[in-house]
């Protein structure tokens, strides 16, 4: 159980600054997900917590204690590496057991825990195999078991599910959430998959180019994006962002758009459009629509049996006031569903 605080932390490799002046509090006992595109510094951040890639400036505190320069073995931390980093010369059992042996956990206790966690990750039949005989997904599961079995107070995971197939990934996702709830351990989980982030996190930390864009619950990130980056990172397809006057932009999510042949009253946004493509995604439909000014937007609808909305048909694109976000010229979020002055301008652009 531990709270981790970053104070003005910077990290550079030689002359390249990857992270500068970062402040972040990772709450005790919460499932925190670091999400961001490739190369934004997620792994770098985890390595600073683990102590294997120490910060070059600032302080990192664990439960109020400065651990900036504490060696990794003194921190009660387990990490699942992005490339697994399992010990290739040891069997699955030995891999899982290694940390316990070093901690001088008695043999009986070790065997009990190995059995327990091997079962959780579904590796029981493979305990005596060598990692070279296993698939990428199986190796990842060893790495998970090896970290979990130590019962650390902070659990760092660097894209631990990226190599699993969809079904196993969904199962492991649930397993990890349950595990976190059961243990109440601080989890820091790195992913670039926004769906994983949304479904697992208590708190999402959204990063880009070494900077934190937004910290919040999945609901906050979705409904109150701090800026355009945040708004467009979460959601597939991303939020449609269109220009207004004075550099102000408005955004509306594809799933918040109503699309009809007839104009419906009571909306804030009205645009005429022309359906270019129509994709059936199973439960949902996805359309690409060209507006009369030439810009294209994406529309997503749960009505998957609308045979009248075909490619090449003319439609009205509409959205309720509450679903419309405004961003200033720096891309920062002004608000959604308001202010009225901006909503009015939106209406002014009706045809």
């Amino acid at each position, binding site marked *: 159980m531990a709270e981790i605080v970053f104070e003005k932390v910077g990290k550079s490799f030689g002359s390249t600054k990857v992270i500068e002046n970062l402040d972040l509090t990772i709450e005790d006992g919460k499932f925190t997900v670091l999400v961001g595109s490739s190369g934004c510094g997620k792994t770098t951040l985890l390595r600073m917590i683990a102590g294997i890639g120490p910060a070059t400036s600032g302080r990192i505190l664990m439960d109020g204690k400065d651990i900036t320069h504490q060696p990794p*073995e003194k921190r009660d931390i387990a990490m699942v590496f992005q490339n697994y980093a*399992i010990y290739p*010369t040891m069997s699955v059992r030995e891999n899982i057991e290694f940390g316990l042996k070093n901690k001088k956990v008695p043999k009986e206790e070790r065997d009990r825990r190995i059995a327990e966690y091997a079962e959780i990750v579904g590796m029981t039949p493979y305990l005596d195999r060598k990692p070279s005989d296993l698939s990428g997904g199986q190796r990842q599961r060893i790495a998970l078991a090896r970290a979990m079995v130590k019962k650390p107070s902070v659990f760092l995971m660097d894209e631990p599910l990226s190599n699993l197939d969809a079904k196993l990934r969904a199962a492991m996702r649930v397993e990890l959430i349950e595990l976190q709830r059961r243990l109440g351990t601080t989890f820091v989980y790195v992913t670039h998959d926004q769906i994983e982030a949304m479904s697992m996190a208590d708190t999402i930390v959204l990063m880009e180019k070494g900077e934190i864009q937004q910290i919040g619950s999945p609901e906050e990130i979705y409904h109150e994006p701090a800026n355009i980056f945040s708004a467009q990172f979460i959601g597939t397809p991303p939020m449609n962002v269109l220009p207004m006057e004075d550099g102000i932009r408005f955004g509306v999510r594809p799933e918040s758009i109503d699309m009809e042949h007839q104009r419906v009253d009571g909306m804030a946004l009205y645009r005429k459009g022309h359906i270019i493509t129509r994709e059936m995604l199973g439960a949902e439909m996805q359309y690409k629509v060209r507006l009369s000014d030439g810009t294209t937007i994406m529309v997503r609808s749960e009505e998957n049996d609308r045979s009248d909305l075909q490619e090449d048909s003319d439609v009205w694109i509409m959205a309720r006031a509450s679903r419309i976000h405004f961003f200033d010229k720096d891309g920062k979020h002004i608000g959604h569903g308001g202010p009225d002055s901006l909503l009015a301008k939106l209406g002014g652009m009706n045809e």
Partner: protein
Amino acid sequence: MTSLSSFTTEQVRELKRIKRRSWLMSYAMILPAILFLLAFVIYPTVSMFIMSLYYGNAMNPYKKFKGLANYNVRPDFWVALRNTAAYTGMALVLVMVLSILFAQWMYKSRKLNNVAQTVFFTPHLVAGVSAGFIWSWLMSSQPYGLFNTVFNALGFSTVRWLDDSSTAMFSIVLMNTWKNVGYYCLIIMSAMKSIPTEIYESARLDGSSSIKTFFKITIPMISPQLFFLLITITTGSFKVFDSVRIMTNGGPGDATRVLSMYIYDYAFERNNTLGYACAAGILMMLLMVAVTVFDFGFVEKKVHYQ
């Protein structure tokens, strides 16, 4: 698929010709290697075996047929064998341990690495005979011996490196270690460099001490290279000759008379004992085969290949 029957007989003949040609071609490709093997390995081995059945000398090896009588070795053979074993054992331990330690020390730092690598590797380029000469001068117990000059200056008494039967063999081992360790160290170092750093980081997070990490992770991960060292050092040491010939010529007494010195002695320095020398050569070869088979049969099981 087109079956053979859909071709005309003319085409079938052509196909067969192509097949025959490619078959001939593949043998032609390995022919040089086979010829080399025949001329430089098989033929000498067979003729050595035949010579070992005779009484004779280098001018006239086949004076009289003696059957397997030459294989009834004399007592001094066992002395030579024991010396060879001692040399091999010492060289194996010393070279292995030192190359691992140096590699472990050097592989992390690039600067140290480049300098040290050159320093360690240069001796490997020196001809064995020259190295022997240099070292017999360095180790000499005469007033001009450099080691002893330094020792005396530091207040230690003279060490009679090559002139004392209890230190002579070790002195030769020392010289050959100096000569070879850089080469083996390079092999070990490149193996160490190929171990992903995350594995070490993971070990640290697992609370493993550096000693434990070394024995539980580094050593197993470089075991293929260690096995290579085991085979090459063992077989190389078994055949040690030039340094012994230069530095002690088998002495003092018989203290450094190793198998190859022994064979040389019986083949060229005595009368009509060529057959006996050949028999000793065959025995030495069989012994080497036996040791290598043992290595592959038992030791290799412990080797971890990626």
